[in-house]
């Protein structure tokens, strides 16, 4: 009895992972092409217009541009697969991968904390708004986020610093502090800035969906059966979660390379600032490394969202297995 079920589950999970690997492969090709697609000569761009021809030739050699294209790709892929690296950074003269890895923890902390805040803010707000549809709470929940959405992140960040760090002195002005508690302490304000920018979309999607579900027949059945309100809400919430989860997955994907502003405002050494300096310095190997690891992050998030979706809704698993030619 459990064997076909396990098989279906394995088909689904296998499909998700194969899908992710395909995306990673495509991204690798794209990242490889970054250097070739840049208009003009990348070596010239790195060295400037006054560079001597032998310097240019030397840079061509370092970037591997003097090789035929297929060999360039082969060696790029070879290094990427074996060492996870994209070559030595031109500006820092160290492994690009090491540079990215050094910055990754701060970015992951930032995104993780903001995700937790988004959930903590969105679920109760959307539920309350939907349950009091048309009431003043609902209006407030719908209007206030739109206002904060109109304010740019750097400004919200500065206001939060001014209020909570300078005046009230409850959170640090910027930077990071050691240890898990230190990290949480330093991430409070920056992750709040990111969360505030994301919650309006999530709350809206969730509220609409909750209203739909509240009108569904099965809610009437549960009410008629005399279940307490909190039990009914559990059913409603679970049925409302999927669209918001998928929306959030997309939002977080944008976030992977997009925490730059927040990192700047709070003086955090994350991937965003690294990417910024890499682009300014035309540090192609480093740009490739950042792009590659951000893409890996995005793929990891979408896999996580897919799996979470499958845990919430069994039909997601079934559909995936069926559409990927699973045994059904």
């Amino acid at each position, binding site marked *: 009895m459990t064997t076909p079920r396990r098989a279906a589950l394995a088909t689904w999970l296998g499909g998700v992972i194969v899908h992710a690997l395909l995306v990673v492969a495509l991204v690798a090709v794209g990242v490889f092409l970054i250097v070739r697609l840049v208009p003009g000569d990348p070596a010239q761009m790195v060295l400037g217009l006054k560079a001597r021809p032998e310097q240019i030739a030397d840079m061509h050699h370092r970037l591997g541009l003097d090789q035929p294209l297929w060999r360039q790709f082969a060696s790029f892929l070879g290094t990427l697969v074996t060492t996870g690296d994209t070559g030595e950074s031109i500006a820092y003269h160290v492994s690009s991968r090491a540079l990215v890895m050094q910055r990754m923890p701060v970015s992951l902390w930032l995104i993780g904390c903001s995700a937790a805040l988004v959930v903590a803010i969105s679920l109760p707000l959307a539920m309350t708004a939907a349950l009091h549809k048309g009431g003043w709470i609902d209006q407030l929940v719908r209007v206030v986020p739109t206002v904060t959405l109109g304010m740019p992140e750097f400004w919200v960040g500065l206001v939060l610093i001014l209020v909570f760090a300078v005046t009230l002195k409850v959170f640090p002005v910027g930077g990071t502090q050691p240890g898990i508690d230190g990290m949480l302490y330093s991430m409070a304000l920056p992750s709040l800035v990111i969360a505030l920018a994301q919650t309006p979309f999530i709350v809206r999607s969730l509220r609409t969906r909750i209203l739909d579900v509240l*009108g569904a027949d099965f809610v*009437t*059945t549960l009410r008629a*059966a005399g279940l307490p309100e909190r039990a009914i809400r559990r059913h409603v919430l*679970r049925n409302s979660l999927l669209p918001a989860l998928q929306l959030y997955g997309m939002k977080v994907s944008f976030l992977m390379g997009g925490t730059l502003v927040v990192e700047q405002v709070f003086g955090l050494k994350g991937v965003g600032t690294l990417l910024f300096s890499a682009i300014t310095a035309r540090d192609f190997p480093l740009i490739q490394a950042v792009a590659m690891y951000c893409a890996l992050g995005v793929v990891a998030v979408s896999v996580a969202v897919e799996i979470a979706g499958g845990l919430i809704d069994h039909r997601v698993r079934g559909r995936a297995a069926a559409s990927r030619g699973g045994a059904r």
Partner: protein
Amino acid sequence: MTALIRVRDLTVTARATGATLVDGVSFDVEPGETVGIVGESGSGKSLTLRAILGMPPAGVAVAGGKGGAAPVTFDGGAGDADGTGDAPQARAPRMAMIFQDPVASLDPLCGVVRQVAEVIRYRQGASRRESRARAADLLVSLGLPESLRGRDRYPDQLSGGQCQRVGLAMALAVRPDILLCDEPTTALDVTVQRRILDLLADRRDRLGLTMLFVTHNLGVAAHLCSRLIVMEHGHIVETGPTARVVGDPHHPYTRRLIDAIAHIPEATR
């Protein structure tokens, strides 16, 4: 004998338009009786049922007669039709309802045993484990496969008829005195309809349920009910024992409903 359900001047209006959907309907239901409310869509029969349950749909207002008397009362106690009055819970009979669309009436993301078990847990005060076992017993006794004991199924993995059996289990898990049925067989195949009707009759007789059965199909109602109430445009146009209403209809609308039951032409028999 005193009536178990007493409906007096029940009026339901649409809040938005002010249109009267149920217009001063009154009737009694005695303990152990099965009463059918028959009429076409828009006759107000389902609204009447929902008003009795105390869960009118959004956008309608329920009112009683003059002097603010409660439109629905039970067993002598005060009714709780609009959900605001405080009914004497100790004396009020327990009600449960089964619905028209059996699949949509179940949470699609929740296994059916779990759904029934949840009702048992909250309404009968059983432990998680105990209520799960009782839920599986109940479902199997209502004709669902034994395999449910080992492994739960989601509503979309069951047929419409099986889902309606689950719906009945959800209702019976409340341990009701009164079972309200809102077109429970309309969405089902004809062959399945008959089996569900027989199951309902069987449970009613075994558990001594009082039943209110809403349908647009006079044939289905006649199969199950001892007394019929015929409704048209929010009014009761005819009421009486089933045999009398079907055999000797007084109102032209009732006659039309009887003619609407499909007959197999003599020639093809």
